[in-house]
């Protein structure tokens, strides 16, 4: 525990009464006195402020944007070259087996690509990219915090600090002065709500967080609610719903791979595991990540083994994330099932405390997204 890293907002979390836990090597707030359920509801109805400074912030630059984009496309099966300036897109690093090394966000900042990666993967990502990228430089940004402001009130709250924030659309990125500080802002997040992610110099991060929290609609939100919010939104948690053994097609992330990188596209393939992933894009995979709604009230969590029926011995898959969805008012889960059982409405069974309980395969997200497109 003594080796845990602290984010620039650590003292503020303690002052706000947070309960701290170890997460990805950081001492992070799991909840505040409001509690996980109310924090979740607050984010869906007003606005929540999250400290996501544990995530990795990277800049990748080459002779020009195209050089950096093409270098990165050798590691990521996404159209990065065609990403417009001041726009952001979701992507992932793949491995030779077609699995996912990490998922990430990529932004075209004109003279460089700004990348946000998962905290638990960042050291490996950096080493891997530095070894695999030629002709470009990768810089880890270690002197900035990352805040997320999420929820229907986010636009009004941030717009009050800088009206340009309100003009941004979903997945726009911009450099904005907020409370006197130059911030790198994207209109995105990981809750299914409208909102922003804000990269702010570490020295000013607490002041900016306080300025945002001063708004009556904004409350601090911990990792507990962040997890239930992203699960309701059908979003993957790396290391749980996707990992080095799951391909993007198995993970139902086909949408993130543009046609241009698929078979027949102008820049088809050319990334690790392309043979596996391109084949699965055309012919499907044997298993697929799906949404699951337990029919009863009991939550079924990560690790619950799934079966096709009440009696069969052979497991068909397992739950990779599960819990209670405050907005939907019941249990929810995601997991992998054979593609033959992945159709919406299919009943499968999860083994919970020795009993096989039914779950229904459900479309994702569980709650509709509220992005400002």
């Amino acid at each position, binding site marked *: 525990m003594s080796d845990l890293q602290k984010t620039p907002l650590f003292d503020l979390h303690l002052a706000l009464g947070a309960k701290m836990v170890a997460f990805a090597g950081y001492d992070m707030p799991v909840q505040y006195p409001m*509690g996980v359920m109310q924090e979740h509801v607050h984010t869906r109805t007003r606005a929540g402020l999250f400290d996501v400074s544990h995530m990795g912030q990277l800049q990748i630059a080459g002779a020009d944007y195209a050089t950096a984009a093409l270098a990165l496309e050798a590691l990521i099966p996404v159209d990065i070259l065609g990403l417009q300036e001041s726009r952001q897109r979701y992507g992932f690093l793949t491995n030779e087996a077609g699995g996912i090394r990490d998922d990430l966000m990529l932004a075209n900042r004109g003279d460089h690509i700004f990348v946000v990666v998962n905290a638990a993967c960042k050291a490996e990502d950096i080493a891997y990219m530095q070894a695999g990228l030629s002709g470009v430089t990768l810089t880890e940004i270690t002197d900035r915090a990352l805040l997320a402001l999420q929820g229907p009130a986010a636009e009004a709250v941030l717009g009050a600090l800088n009206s340009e924030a309100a003009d941004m659309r979903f997945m726009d990125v911009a450099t904005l002065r907020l409370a006197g500080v130059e911030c790198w802002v994207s209109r995105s997040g990981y809750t299914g709500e409208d909102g922003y992610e804000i990269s702010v110099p570490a020295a000013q991060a607490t002041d900016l967080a306080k300025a945002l929290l001063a708004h009556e609609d904004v409350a601090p939100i911990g990792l507990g609610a962040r997890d239930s919010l992203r699960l309701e939104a059908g979003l993957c948690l790396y290391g749980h719903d996707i990992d080095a053994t799951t391909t993007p097609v198995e993970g139902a992330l086909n949408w993130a791979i543009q046609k241009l990188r698929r078979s027949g596209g102008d820049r088809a393939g050319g990334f690790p595991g392309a043979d596996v992933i391109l084949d699965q894009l055309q012919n499907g995979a044997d298993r697929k990540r799906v949404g699951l709604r337990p029919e009863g009230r009991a939550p079924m969590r990560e690790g619950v083994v799934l079966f096709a029926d009440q009696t069969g011995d052979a497991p068909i898959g397992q739950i990779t994330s599960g819990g209670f969805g405050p907005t939907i008012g019941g249990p929810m889960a995601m997991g992998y099932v054979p593609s033959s059982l992945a159709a919406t409405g299919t009943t499968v069974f999860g083994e919970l405390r020795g009993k096989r309980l039914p779950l229904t395969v459900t479309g994702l997200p569980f709650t509709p997204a509220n992005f400002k497109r």
Partner: protein
Amino acid sequence: MKYTEEHEWLRTEGDLVVVGITEHATTQLGDIVFVELPDVGDTVAKDDEVVVIESVKAASDISAPLDGEIVEVNADLADNPALANEDATGAGWFFKIKPTDASQTDEYMDEAAYNAMIA
């Protein structure tokens, strides 16, 4: 009221004992979203796992504090698990047990001893 080390409270009502979990326990567990109660008529032995509680964080088991028969369960709690957070020692009770040997309650802590344990 008597208290177990597992943070259950026991309140004797005539020849029955009402059982729930303490406010300290529900605060530690966080928002409770699911409670699985035993069936009325179940004969249980002390330390049998009789209740499953799921909070937003995790699942926990609650053991029978006494030998006896379950004579009533709190159906309102099954429908609205948040009652355990809102009113742990009142509307959030779990079940009523008819003890085989009422003297088993004597071994449990009184309020002062319980408060010292959680202090």
